[in-house]
């Protein structure tokens, strides 16, 4: 039962209408608005001007926010990679009986609201929190450490959020590996670390790249984690945008920042697609 072309387009019409009204038109207006001069959210002239962008790019404070966000997101991605691989490996190798439970545990940061897990980190990292009380109790420190409202807390919270995406991406690649490769390597005398390094990891590379892209783009546009766990004030791109809109009423600058975030995100996805194409080609060639 296959729809004709006209029927298919008719069936797609409501979904396309939702995207047109709820996403495409608003984004087009956001772009237009970022190219206009406005005061407290109201355009003062229709003329197209790059003024908001030159103001944004020329401002050291905002450029620092961009640099800091990208730097911390890179760190988050790196940690997620290091922690995500063992998780993916465990999910891949665990017996079928435990796989369901483990899947729910690995995915739990996705299933539980970010607001909830951020609150959990508040309880763990606070002045009277779990970590400080344990360290004080053990006599390792004399006074509580400032763990909360730091950039370290942002990195910790975000790593927790992006970890499932990384683990699942790597797992998807691991599951496509022909088990005979590792067996062949083992028969030829490779030890388990050698198999991991020379067979499993290279073949998991496409998944690692996919996970990296997902993790970085999620971290880069995060709002809740930096807002709850980070230093007070604008500390990340998204929190700074919020600040421009809600506190400073500088909608022009906020709109320009939002467009920059969008372009960065889309650029990343395109770069990733190109890279996967290349690495995918290499992996396929290696398999042939």
């Amino acid at each position, binding site marked *: *039962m296959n729809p004709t072309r006209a029927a298919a387009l008719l*069936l797609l019409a*409501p979904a396309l209408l939702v995207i047109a009204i709820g996403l495409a038109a*608003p984004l087009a207006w*956001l772009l237009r608005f970022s190219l206009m001069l406005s005061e407290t959210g109201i355009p003062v002239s229709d003329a197209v001007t790059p003024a908001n962008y030159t103001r944004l790019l020329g401002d050291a404070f905002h450029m620092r926010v961009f640099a800091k966000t990208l730097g911390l997101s890179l760190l988050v991605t790196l940690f997620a990679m290091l922690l995500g691989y063992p998780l993916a490996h465990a999910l891949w190798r665990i017996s079928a009986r435990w796989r369901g439970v483990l*899947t729910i545990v690995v995915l739990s940061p996705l299933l539980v609201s970010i607001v909830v897990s951020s609150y959990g980190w*508040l309880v763990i990292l606070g002045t009277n929190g779990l970590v400080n009380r344990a360290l004080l109790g053990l006599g390792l420190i004399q006074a509580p450490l400032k763990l909360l409202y730091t950039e370290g807390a942002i990195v910790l919270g975000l790593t927790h959020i992006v970890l499932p995406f990384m683990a699942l991406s790597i797992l998807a690649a691991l599951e496509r590996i022909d088990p005979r490769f*590792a067996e062949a390597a*083992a028969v030829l005398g490779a030890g388990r670390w050698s198999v991991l390094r020379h067979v499993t990891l290279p073949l998991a590379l496409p998944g690692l790249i996919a996970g990296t892209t997902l993790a970085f783009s999620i971290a880069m546009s995060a709002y809740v984690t930096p807002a709850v766990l980070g230093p007070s004030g604008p500390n990340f791109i998204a929190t700074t945008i*919020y600040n421009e809109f809600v506190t400073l009423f500088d909608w022009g600058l906020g709109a320009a920042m939002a467009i920059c975030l969008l372009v960065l995100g889309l650029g990343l996805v395109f770069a990733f697609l190109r890279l996967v194409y290349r690495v995918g080609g290499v992996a396929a060639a290696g398999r042939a």
Partner: protein
Amino acid sequence: MSTRNPLLWFVAALVLCFVLAPIVVVIVASFTQASVPEFPPSQWSLRWYAHALSQPVFRAAAWNSAVLAAIATLINIPIALMAAFALVRGRFPGREAIQTVLLAPLIVPAVVTGIAILLAFSAAGWRDAMSRLLLAHVVITLPYMVRTIMASLARLDPVAEEAAMTLGASPLRCFLHVTLPLVMPGLIAGAVFAFIVSFDNVSVSLFLTSARTSTLPIAVLGYVEYNIDPSIAALSTLLIGASLIAALLVERVVGLRRALGS
């Protein structure tokens, strides 16, 4: 095979502790008697549950969130079903481009979506908070539904449909009595995910709630800024319970990973 690699399993176990830490701490700390969250509590009590559930702010916000998530999901069921059917079964130029467009809300950073809707709808004179939120939530949950339904449709064996058609069923009858029951697991999984995504959303709702109309995550976020008393832990534990039930349901019906599209 590197099945027996004790170090890797040990590291995996440590990582699992990290994954579960904030969730376990919230659940345990919610049962404290003290006025600050403690782990483990020195005295156990349910007082913060009573406190959280008696706050009018949270009750109103929770009601708004539930209504929004339910209506957005219900609106999306027919829309996503039709779109997924056309994308999986139709053969027409531009099919892949349309698929990308329908999945676009996943690629655009949520904060950007929120601001774009705020700016555009305000400029167009659309100021009612609840209806703006509803449209925004329909947009952000649509891709989850389209994707899960597409996955079930793609795995469906066309033999059953062909048999029904050969036996004289009309296309509509065939769809309602053969295709629809077969994609029902995917539909349910998609609906559960859409509900969770809508209910938990912060980054889009942030810009669209008003002083009088809030959602639960936004209300909690506002509360946490000034108080970290355990009422949030109690509320969070209730939310974790609800998420766990939903996750088990999806895992039972279709499998969580499949529903997430990986």
